[in-house]
C-alpha cells in the first residue's frame, strides 16, 4: 500500500482546493485469542485533516521570521484594557473586542523566565521531540499569561532566564517553530534550523 502523493491544500477564491491523497485504506485484520476464537478486528486509519489557523495565523507565520507576536486589549472601556496576552488571543476574553497585535520578541529576549517546568521520558504517538522532553512555562514582565514551550538546551529551573529561538530554516508553521534556551546561549550551539 503506497502513501505517496500525500495531500496538499491551497485556498483559491475563499475555497479549499485539495490535491493528492488525504487517506489511505488498509485491510482489517482479525483479533483472536489463544484458542483461535474471533474477538474483534483492527480498523486501520490514515487520514489528513485540514485545519484553519484563522486569526491566529500571523502568530504561526511570524515564528519563521523570528518574531514572537502577542495581542493586547485596545478597548479603553474594557475592565482589563491594556492586558497583554500570549498565547495570542484574537479577542479580549473580557470585552470580546478584537485585540491589537503586539510584538513581544524584544520583551521575550530581555525579560522571560521559567515559571515552572517538567522533564519526561514519556511521549505519545506522533511525538517529534527528542527525549527527555523539557517543557518550560515562560512568564514575561507585564504579560497576563504564561506561555508553554520546550527547552532545547540545558536543564530547566524555576526562575531561570530564557530566550526564544525560532526555526527559521524549514519551518513547520506550528508551535514547534518556537523553542527556548538559557539566556547567554551562543548561536553556534542552537539546534539545526533554529536562530535567535
Amino acid at each position: 500500500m503506497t502513501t505517496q502523493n500525500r495531500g496538499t491544500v491551497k485556498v483559491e477564491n475563499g475555497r479549499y482546493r485539495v490535491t493528492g491523497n488525504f487517506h489511505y485504506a488498509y485491510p482489517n485484520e482479525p483479533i483472536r485469542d489463544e484458542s483461535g476464537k474471533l474477538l474483534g478486528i483492527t480498523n486501520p486509519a490514515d487520514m489528513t485533516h485540514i485545519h484553519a489557523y484563522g486569526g491566529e495565523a500571523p502568530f504561526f507565520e511570524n515564528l519563521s521570521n523570528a518574531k514572537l507576536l502577542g495581542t493586547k486589549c485596545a478597548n479603553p472601556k474594557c475592565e482589563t484594557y491594556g492586558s497583554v496576552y500570549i498565547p495570542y488571543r484574537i479577542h479580549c476574553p473580557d470585552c470580546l473586542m478584537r485585540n491589537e497585535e503586539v510584538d513581544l520578541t524584544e520583551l521575550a529576549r530581555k525579560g522571560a523566565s521559567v515559571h515552572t517546568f517538567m522533564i519526561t521520558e514519556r511521549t505519545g504517538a506522533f511525538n517529534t521531540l527528542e527525549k527527555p522532553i523539557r517543557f518550560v512555562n515562560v512568564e514575561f514582565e507585564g504579560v497576563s499569561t504564561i506561555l508553554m514551550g520546550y527547552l532545547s538546551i540545558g536543564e530547566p529551573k524555576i526562575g531561570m532566564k530564557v530566550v526564544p529561538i525560532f526555526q527559521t530554516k524549514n519551518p513547520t508553521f506550528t508551535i514547534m517553530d518556537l523553542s527556548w534556551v538559557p539566556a547567554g546561549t551562543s548561536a553556534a550551539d542552537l539546534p539545526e534550523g533554529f536562530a535567535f
Partner: protein
Amino acid sequence: MIKFSKQQLKIPQMSKPVYLVTGGMSKFDRAIPEKRTEELVIDAFLEAAEFIKKSPEELKKYIHSCYYGHFADHFGDQLLGEAVIHDRLGLDPLGNVGIKTGGATGGSTIWEAYKAVASGYSDTALAMGWERMDEVPTDEGNHYIASAADKDWETPMGHIYTGYYAVMAQKYWQVFGKEEESFRRTLAEIAVKNKGYARMNPHAQSPMKITVEDVLNSPIVAHPLRALDCCLMSVGASCVILADEKTAYEMTDNPLLLYTSAGSHTLRVADRRDMAIPLLPNESPDQYKDLGVRFPGGDRYPGFTGFLAARMAAYYAYGMAGIVDPTEDLDLVELHDAFTISDIQTYEDIGIRPYGEGRTYVESGDCYHTNPFTGQPGKLPANLSGGLIGCMHAVGATGIMQVIEVAQHIWGRWSEMHADEAKWKRFNRVKPDDWTDLQVKGAKRGMAISHAGVGSHVTATVLVHPDHQLKGRG
C-alpha cells in the same frame, strides 16, 4: 483578572429537590476484549435495578430522559455512540444527549440529569457513563488524550497530557511542598492508601498492597511523579438514577438528596490570569494575605498550583447543601486523584484544608477509613473505592462511580456491595483473605469531585441523607 458579578456568584436555586435512587457499575479493567461497550453498560444498569429490587423493565418504565457521559469518541471510533447505547438499553424513543467534559464527564453527566429532574422536565432521569480506552495502543491513547489539550499550542509538544499537568505538579512541589522529602513521602502515602483500599473493591482494576518505598522506587513519569502516583486507564461503565421526591419514594424507601454544581477554568493553564482567591464559607479574607511569604512563589492565584474550577464547584455546592466546613459537615469524600499531587491540590481548592496546608489532611490521618495514628475512625475518609489510582479511570464512568461509592456508605450497604463472593467470582477476581469492611459507620453526608485534566471542568456532587440535612442550605 476574573471579577465575579453578583449574578455569577448566585447559589443555584433548584425548583424542586432531587434524589439519588440507585446506582450500579460494571467491572473495571485495563482491557475487556470479550465485551462490547453496551454489554458493560447493561452490566451497570442491571446492578442499579437489582440494588432496589426492581427488574430492568420495571426500572426503565420510570425513566423519562437520558444523559450519557462518554468522553473520547476517538477511542471507540464511533461518533454518536450514545445513540447505540440508548438503543441497546431499549430506551428509544426517549430524549437523550451525550455529555463530554474530559475527566469530569461523569460528574457533568449527573449535573445534566440533576437539572432535568430539578426543573420538572423529567420525574426520573438516567445518568450513564462509560469509556473504552483499550481500543488503541497506549502511545496512541496518549496522543488522543493529549488532543484534549490545545491542539495548536500544546498537543504538538510531546503528545503527552501527563506533561501538561506535570508542570503544575512541579510548581506545587517546589512552592508548597518546598521539595521536602517528607512531602514526597506524603504523596506516596496517598497511592499506598488508594491502592490498598482498591483491594477491598471487586470492581477495582489495580488493587495493590504496597509501601511508600514501592511508590518512590516505581519508574519516574515526570519528576516528582512516578508511575504509582498516577491514575489508571480503564474500560467500564457506571450509572445512577435520579428522581423527584414523589417518584424517588415510589421506587425505594431510602433515596438520598443530591446536589450537583460545576465550575470551569481555561483549557490552557497558560491563560489563567492572576486573581484574588475566591473564599469558601470556612475561610476568612485575611488568612491568605501572607501566603506568598509563607510559601515564596505562592502568591499568584490560581497560578499553576490551584484549580479555580474546583473552588467554584465547591462554592456553589456548599451553598446549595448548607456546608460550612467540609471536614466537619461531611462524613466521606471521593476525590479525583488523577495524580497524588493533584489530590493534595484539591484538598485546598475545596476547603478541606487551607491553601498551602493540603498535606496535613494526609499527615493527620484524617483522610483514612481508620486513622493510622489513633486507631479511631478517620475524620473524613477519602477514596475508599480506591479512586482513580486504585479502582479505575474509565473517564465517562469515573464521576458516576464515585457518587455510587459515597452513596453506598450513606445507605449502609457498602459491605453488601463489596463483600459478595459471587461478584468477586463473576469478575474473575480473588477476594483477599484480609478483606476488610470499609463501611463508614453512621455516614450521613458525602461528596464526590469530578475533575478534568488541568482543571478545565470540575463538578461537585453532595449526597445528604434526608434526615440529616444541614441548616443554611440555599
